[in-house]
């Protein structure tokens, strides 16, 4: 089967010199300003935090096997989900795709030698590490039990856990995000190769541009908010403490002003990955390029206007609630545009069944379910019932795990030949993708029902009638864990033992595939000149796909 899908394999040699072997030693990594090496530094560190968060998730699921809670004390349970959320959101998912794949690919995709500010790029990794250390310090000395949302006055006055270092850690980490976003924006504006006009940019770049916009304009707000909350805790100030005239609702407004747009920081890059994978593995131009590109920007901009849909049940003014609900529906439209365009791209394609494609299609399905259930939450009359229940948990895991993480892992698979120069075992990778998909659904689908039945989130124990669904969910989580371990294992394995990939194994149209795999430090020996439209497979003789084998063109197009 695989023979029919991939081109007859030529045997390739690894390039003599590339970014991985251009210099050796730990110093050459820790002091590197090469965006590709920095991407790998990030890869290692975000994977670490994914494991940390994953271990917490595993303990959550085991604990919830029985109504009274099977594993830990209430305090510990509360710390588990808080640290799970903090590790996963701030230290894994937000940096994952932008800092790893974005860093690696953006300069290559636009034909630049590096990002605009290479030293700033390295600095942002160090800032991330420092922030991460603070977080780990908090996790290991007393933990953190405020929920990842840090609602005041619980976090600023009442909690006895290590809130201060965690808040500082996230504050610091915010600057890493800001610097990454800043670097991307400037790079995309000023470093494009000749001929790389805005509408020739790969969609991955568009979505990272939108993401960077959110990083740059949103992150400072959460930084200052957490700083104020931290000051309130350390110095007994009263910004958000009603006992001293402050207002806890204000904290929620400020927090969500960032944290809602932040969900698009998590999903937009994944959408960018999918927008690359789909055309490549359907060998077809993306359907509606300009719509997909513009919808990224629309999501980023409108995404800033909906934050108070997390506050519907705080007694906020009904007028405001109406406005924010309406705007939340508005932001769903550009997401819909993307989903439909991806689906339409498959029509009359030449679809291969490689692992990245499986991940990308998995993304579309799960993101759709997650996004559609977002519509339930944005619906005022329904949020009355399902706010802060497991329905919300299911909603965001569908988008973030089923969507964003799938996109991330799919992207890793897609660009792995570029990153490592090697190919991973095909059959195993497809098996892993399917395992993940099934395990995922078994874990989180029951939670929708749990939520509608009324099980509130952040519960260390629950009424016995909810047990069956919880057990199902835990069973799913164990399959899911296996699904994550597999790629980690075989990707690592392939770095050493995999077959040599060659510059353009799929083949794909982007500039990043026009250089060797792994690329040289300066990416392109000669700055490329772009004179082709994006994803234009039929007009790219250099890909080695013979013309004349085109599928028939429909009459009306």
């Amino acid at each position: 089967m695989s023979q029919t899908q991939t081109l007859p394999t030529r045997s390739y040699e690894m390039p003599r010199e590339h970014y991985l072997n251009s210099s050796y030693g730990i110093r050459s990594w820790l002091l590197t300003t090469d965006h590709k090496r920095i991407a790998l530094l990030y890869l290692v560190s975000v994977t670490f935090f994914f494991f940390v968060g994953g271990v917490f998730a595993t303990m959550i699921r085991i604990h919830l096997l029985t109504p009274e809670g099977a594993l830990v004390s209430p305090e510990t349970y509360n710390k588990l989900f808080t640290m799970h959320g903090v590790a996963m959101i701030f230290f894994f998912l937000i940096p994952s795709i932008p800092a790893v794949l974005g860093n690696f690919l953006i300069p290559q995709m636009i034909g630049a030698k590096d990002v605009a500010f290479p030293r700033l790029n390295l600095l942002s990794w160090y800032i991330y590490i420092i922030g991460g250390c603070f977080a780990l310090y908090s996790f290991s000395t007393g933990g953190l039990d405020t929920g990842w949302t840090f609602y005041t006055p619980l976090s600023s006055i009442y909690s006895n856990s290590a809130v201060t270092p965690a808040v500082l850690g996230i504050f610091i980490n915010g600057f890493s995000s800001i610097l990454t976003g800043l670097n991307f924006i400037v790079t995309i504006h000023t470093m494009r190769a000749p001929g790389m006009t805005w509408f020739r940019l790969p969609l991955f770049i568009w979505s990272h541009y939108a993401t960077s916009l959110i990083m740059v304009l949103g992150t400072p707000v959460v930084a200052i908010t957490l700083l104020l909350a931290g000051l309130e805790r350390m110095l007994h100030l009263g910004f958000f403490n009603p006992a001293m005239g402050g207002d806890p609702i204000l904290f929620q407004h400020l927090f969500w002003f960032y944290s809602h747009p932040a969900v698009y920081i998590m999903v937009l890059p994944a959408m960018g990955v999918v927008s690359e994978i789909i055309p490549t593995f359907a060998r077809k131009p993306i359907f509606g390029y300009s719509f997909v590109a513009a919808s990224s920007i629309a999501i980023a901009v409108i995404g800033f206007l909906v934050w108070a849909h997390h506050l519907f049940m705080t007694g906020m003014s009904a007028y405001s609630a109406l406005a924010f609900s309406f705007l939340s529906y508005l932001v769903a439209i550009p997401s819909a545009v993307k989903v439909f365009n991806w689906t339409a791209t498959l029509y009359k394609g030449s679809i291969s069944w490689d692992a990245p494609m499986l991940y990308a299609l998995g993304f579309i399905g799960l993101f759709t379910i997650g996004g559609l259930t977002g519509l339930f939450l944005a619906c005022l009359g329904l949020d009355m019932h399902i706010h802060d229940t497991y329905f919300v948990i299911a909603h965001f895991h569908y988008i973030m795990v089923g969507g964003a993480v799938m996109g991330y892992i799919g992207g890793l698979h897609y660009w792995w030949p570029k990153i490592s120069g090697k190919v991973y075992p095909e059959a195993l990778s497809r098996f892993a993708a399917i395992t993940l998909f099934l395990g995922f659904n078994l874990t989180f689908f029951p939670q929708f029902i749990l939520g509608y039945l009324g099980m509130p989130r952040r519960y260390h124990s629950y009424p016995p009638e909810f047990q069956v669904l919880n057990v199902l969910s835990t069973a799913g989580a164990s399959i899911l864990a296996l699904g994550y371990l597999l790629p980690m294992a075989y990707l690592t394995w392939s770095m050493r033992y995999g077959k040599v990939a060659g510059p353009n194994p799929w083949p794909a149209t982007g500039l990043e595939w026009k250089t060797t795999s792994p690329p040289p430090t300066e990416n392109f020996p000669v700055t490329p000149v772009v004179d082709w439209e994006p994803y234009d497979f039929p007009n790219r003789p250099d890909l080695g796909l013979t013309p004349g084998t085109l599928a028939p063109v429909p009459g009306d197009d």
Partner: protein
Amino acid sequence: MPEHSEHIVSPKIYFTIFIALVIGTSLTTWAAFQNFGPFNIVIALGIATAKATLVVLFFMHARYSVGRTRLVIVCAIFWLAIMLALTLADYQTRQPRMSRLVPPAVFYRV
């Protein structure tokens, strides 16, 4: 050569702006001591905004800048406006908060 792409503002303009800023400062301080009722705040912020605009346009050369720089400025102001406007809209229409709900004794129990 490329360096001529940047606009050079003459010291005369700088000095004029400087004087305008000094006048603005004096004006705003003076106005604060007059009773304009609800307009005190409007005047104070109006003058501040005028001063800030002068600084951005001339000291920071925004008046002579390229499109993308202007885009950044517009974005920053726009996003700030979103944050203030939508939050205040909620506060304006929601039920007011009370000064304090419970005696402090309960609060400092920790």
